C-alpha cells in the first residue's frame, strides 16, 4: 500500500499542468475551480446590482462606470428600460444559480465532502470534472446572452410566461433562449454533482464513520442535493416546453394557442422553494461546523437538527403556491398553502434555537469565521421573521411584488450565500490554500459588510410598506413613490459602500494566498476529518484512511485535558470511564 501511494505521488507530479489544474478529476482542485468561478460571477452579478441601484436612485442619469457598455445596450452610461430589466433578471439568476450554488455546493461541497467522510475522492471523479465544465459552459451562455441581438433575458429570474414565451413581448430573442439553455446546463451540472455527493457519502465513508457521526455540513450537502434532484425535474420539463414555444412556435404557455400561463408559475415555484433551501442548507451547514469550534462546545441537538432539516425538506415541496397568492389561482388553495408555509417555520425555528443554545455556556472566541457565523444567524432571523408577513395571505396581497419581498429574500439569501460563504471561506481557507487569512482585514471586512448589508436592505422594508413595486425602472413615474426617493438614494449609497467593502476581502484573499502565514494541519483545533490530514492535503487526501471513533462535536468533554477530541483519535481512558 505504502509503495503504491508513493508511486501515485510521483505520478501526480508528472501530470501535465492541464491535467492537474484544468481538466483535473481531483475533488480539491474542482472545488477550487468552483470557488473561483463563483467569486467571479459574484463580481459580475454585484456589478449588475450596482447598475440597478444607481438607476433606481438617480433614474436615467449616466451610471459612473457604465460608459463602456456599447449602444444600443446603454447610451454612454444611461441605462434604457430594456437593459434594466435584463440587469435585474440576470442579477437574480446569476446570484442564485451561478454564485450561491457553485459557491456553497460546488466549492465547499466538493472540497469538503470527501475529506469529511474520510474518502480519497468523490465516487465518480470524472463525472465531477464534467459537472464543473458543464456549469462553466453554462456561465459562458449566460454571459454570452448579453452580446446577442436583443440583449439578455429580461423576463425576471422567474421567467413568467407568456412574457418569456414569445419574443414579441420583450424583444429579446436569443438572449432568453440562451438563458434557458444556460439554466438547463446548470441543472445538469448539479444533478451530476448530486450523484457524487450522495454516493460518496453513502458508500465511501471511512471505517467507523456511521451516518450519525457525519459532520452536519455533510448532512446539509446531501439533503440539498436530494432536494435539488427531486424538485428540478418538472422545471426541466417546463423549460423544454418554454424553449419550444419560443423557437418552434408551439403554445404550451400561450393562451392564444390554448396554453396556460399559470402552469409555468407552478412548475417554477415547485422547484423554486426547495431551491432556496438548496442554497440555504449548505450555508447554515458551514455555520453548524463553525459555531462548535469557536465556542468549544458540541452543536446543540445534533439529531434534532438532522430531523428538522428532513422535515423542512419534505415541507418545502408543499409550500410553492405561497408565491402565487395573488396570481389568480383558485383561492381555495390559499389557506392550505398558508398553513404549510406557517408550519415550515417550525423546523427552522428549531435550528435557530439550537444555534443559540450552542452558544450558551460556551467559551466563544471571535475569530473572523465565527463572526461571520454569528452574523449569518442574526441576519437570517430577519429573513425568517419577515417571511411570516409574506406567508400571511392578506398581508401578501399588499406586499407581494414590492420591495418588502425583495428585502425579505435578500435577508435569507445573502446570509446563506455571502455571510455563510465567507464564514466557510475564512474557516477552511487554511486547509484549502495552506495559509492563514489576515484577521484584521477579515474583521474589517466583516463589520463593513454586516453594517452596509443591513443599511441596504432594512430601508427596503420601508419602501415595500410604502407600496414600492419591484422590477420598476423608474420609481419617479409615480407620485406616491416620489416622497420615498430619498430612501432609494440612501440604499444606493449603502450598496456602493457594501460593494467597496469587498475590497479588503479581495486583498486579503490574494495576499494571504501568496504571502499569508503558513497554516498548520489543524489551526482551529477542530475535530472533523478534514483537519486530520496534513496541510496541504496530499493527493488522495489521506496517507492512510483514518478510523473514526466518535461523533464530530466532542468539544470540552469533562475529565479531559484537551477541550477537543478529533474524530479519528480514541478518547482518553479517563473520559471513557
Amino acid at each position, binding site marked *: 500500500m505504502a509503495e503504491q501511494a508513493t508511486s501515485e505521488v510521483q505520478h501526480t507530479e508528472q501530470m501535465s499542468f492541464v491535467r492537474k489544474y484544468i481538466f483535473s478529476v481531483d475533488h480539491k482542485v474542482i472545488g477550487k475551480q468552483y470557488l473561483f468561478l463563483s467569486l467571479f460571477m459574484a463580481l459580475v452579478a454585484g456589478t449588475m446590482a450596482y447598475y440597478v441601484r444607481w438607476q433606481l436612485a438617480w433614474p436615467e442619469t449616466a451610471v459612473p462606470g457604465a460608459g463602456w457598455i456599447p449602444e444600443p445596450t446603454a447610451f454612454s452610461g444611461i441605462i434604457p428600460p430594456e437593459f434594466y430589466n435584463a440587469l435585474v433578471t440576470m442579477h437574480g439568476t446569476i446570484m442564485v444559480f451561478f454564485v450561491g450554488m457553485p459557491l456553497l455546493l460546488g466549492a465547499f461541497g466538493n472540497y469538503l465532502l470527501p475529506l469529511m467522510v474520510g474518502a480519497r475522492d468523490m465516487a465518480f471523479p470524472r463525472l465531477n470534472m464534467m459537472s464543473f465544465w458543464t456549469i462553466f459552459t453554462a456561465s459562458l451562455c449566460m454571459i454570452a446572452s448579453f452580446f446577442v441581438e436583443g440583449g439578455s433575458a429580461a423576463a425576471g429570474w422567474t421567467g413568467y410566461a407568456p412574457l418569456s414565451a414569445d419574443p414579441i413581448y420583450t424583444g429579446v430573442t436569443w438572449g432568453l433562449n440562451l438563458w434557458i439553455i444556460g439554466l438547463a446546463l446548470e441543472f445538469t451540472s448539479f444533478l451530476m454533482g*448530486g*450523484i457524487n455527493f450522495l*454516493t460518496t457519502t453513502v458508500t*465511501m465513508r471511512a471505517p467507523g464513520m456511521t451516518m450519525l457521526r457525519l459532520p452536519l455540513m455533510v448532512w446539509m450537502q446531501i439533503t440539498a442535493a436530494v432536494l435539488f434532484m427531486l424538485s428540478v425535474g*418538472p422545471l426541466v*420539463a417546463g423549460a423544454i416546453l418554454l424553449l419550444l414555444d419560443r423557437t418552434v412556435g408551439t403554445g404550451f404557455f400561450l393562451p392564444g394557442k*390554448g396554453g396556460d400561463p399559470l402552469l409555468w408559475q407552478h*412548475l417554477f415555484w415547485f422547484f423554486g422553494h426547495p431551491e432556496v433551501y438548496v442554497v440555504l442548507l449548505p450555508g447554515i451547514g458551514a455555520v453548524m461546523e463553525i459555531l462548535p469550534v469557536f465556542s468549544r462546545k458540541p452543536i446543540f441537538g445534533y439529531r434534532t437538527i438532522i430531523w428538522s432539516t428532513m422535515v423542512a425538506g419534505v415541507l418545502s415541496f408543499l409550500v410553492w403556491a405561497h408565491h402565487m397568492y395573488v396570481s389568480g389561482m383558485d383561492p381555495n388553495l390559499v389557506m392550505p398553502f398558508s398553513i404549510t408555509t406557517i408550519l415550515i417555520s417550525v423546523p427552522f425555528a428549531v435550528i435557530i434555537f439550537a444555534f443559540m443554545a450552542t452558544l450558551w455556556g460556551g467559551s466563544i472566541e471571535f475569530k473572523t469565521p465565527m463572526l461571520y457565523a454569528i452574523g449569518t444567524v442574526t441576519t437570517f432571523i430577519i429573513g425568517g421573521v419577515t417571511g411570516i408577513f409574506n406567508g400571511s395571505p392578506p398581508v401578501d396581497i399588499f406586499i407581494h411584488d414590492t420591495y418588502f419581498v425583495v428585502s425579505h429574500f435578500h435577508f435569507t439569501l445573502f446570509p446563506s450565500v455571502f455571510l455563510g460563504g465567507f464564514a466557510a471561506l475564512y474557516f477552511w481557507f487554511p486547509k484549502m490554500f495552506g495559509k492563514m487569512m489576515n484577521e484584521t482585514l477579515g474583521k474589517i471586512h466583516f463589520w463593513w459588510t454586516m453594517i452596509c448589508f443591513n443599511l441596504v436592505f432594512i430601508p427596503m422594508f420601508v419602501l415595500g410598506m410604502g407600496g414600492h413595486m419591484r422590477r420598476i425602472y423608474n420609481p419617479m413615474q409615480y407620485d406616491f413613490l416620489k416622497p420615498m426617493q430619498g430612501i432609494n438614494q440612501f440604499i444606493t449609497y449603502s450598496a456602493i459602500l457594501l460593494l467597496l467593502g469587498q475590497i479588503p476581502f479581495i486583498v486579503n484573499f490574494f495576499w494571504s494566498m501568496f504571502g499569508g502565514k503558513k497554516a498548520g494541519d489543524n489551526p482551529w483545533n477542530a475535530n472533523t476529518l478534514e483537519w486530520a490530514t496534513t496541510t496541504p492535503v496530499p493527493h488522495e487526501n489521506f496517507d492512510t484512511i483514518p478510523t473514526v471513533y466518535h461523533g464530530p462535536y466532542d468539544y470540552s468533554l469533562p475529565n479531559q485535558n484537551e477541550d477537543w477530541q478529533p474524530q479519528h483519535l480514541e478518547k482518553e481512558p479517563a473520559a471513557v470511564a
Partner: protein
Amino acid sequence: MSGASTVTEYQATHTVPGRMGVWWFLASEIMVFGGFLAVYILYRMASHGAWAAMAEHVSAPIGTFNTVVLLTSSLTMVKAFEAVDKDARDKARNYLLITVLLGVAFLCVKGFEYSHEISMGFTPLSGSFWSFYYVLTGLHGLHVLAGIIANFCLYIMAVRGTLWSKNCQGRVEFAGLYWHLVDVIWIFLFPLLYLSY
C-alpha cells in the same frame, strides 16, 4: 463509473457506487417525465374533452403493437442480464442483439406513425394535443435511441470479449435498469396518448 473501485480500499456499505449513480439518474429522469405527465394531465383535464377528439387520430393498434415490442425488449434485456450473471456469454450477446433490434423496430414503427400523422396534417403545431404528443413521444424516442446506442455498445463489447473484464462489471445491469425505465415511461405514455379518447 470506473474510477470508484480504484480510489477506495474501504467501503462503508455493500452498495455499489455505480448502481447508486444509476438509480439517482433514473430518479431524476422520473422527476422530469413526471413533470411532463403532470402538465399533460392537467392540460387535458382543462381541455374538457376537446383533446379526446384529437386523440382519436392516433392509431391505437400501432401503439399497442409498439408496446408489445418494447415490453418484449425489456424481457430480452432481463434475459441478457441473467445470462451475464450465469456467465453464459453467447446467450448474453444474442439477447443484447435482440434487444437492440427490438428497440430499432420500435423507432421504425414510431417513424412510420409520425409520417402518417404528418401526412394527415397533424404536425406539432396543430394544437396543444399534438404539441404534447410530439414532445412526449419525441423525448421518449430520444431515450429509446440512447438506450439502443448503449446496448449496442455493450453488444460490440460482448462480441470483442471486453465486456467480461472486471472493469465492466455491472454495465449490463445498469443499461438494463435504464432500458426498463424507458419502458415504464412508455407504459404511462401509451394509455395517456393512445387510449384515452
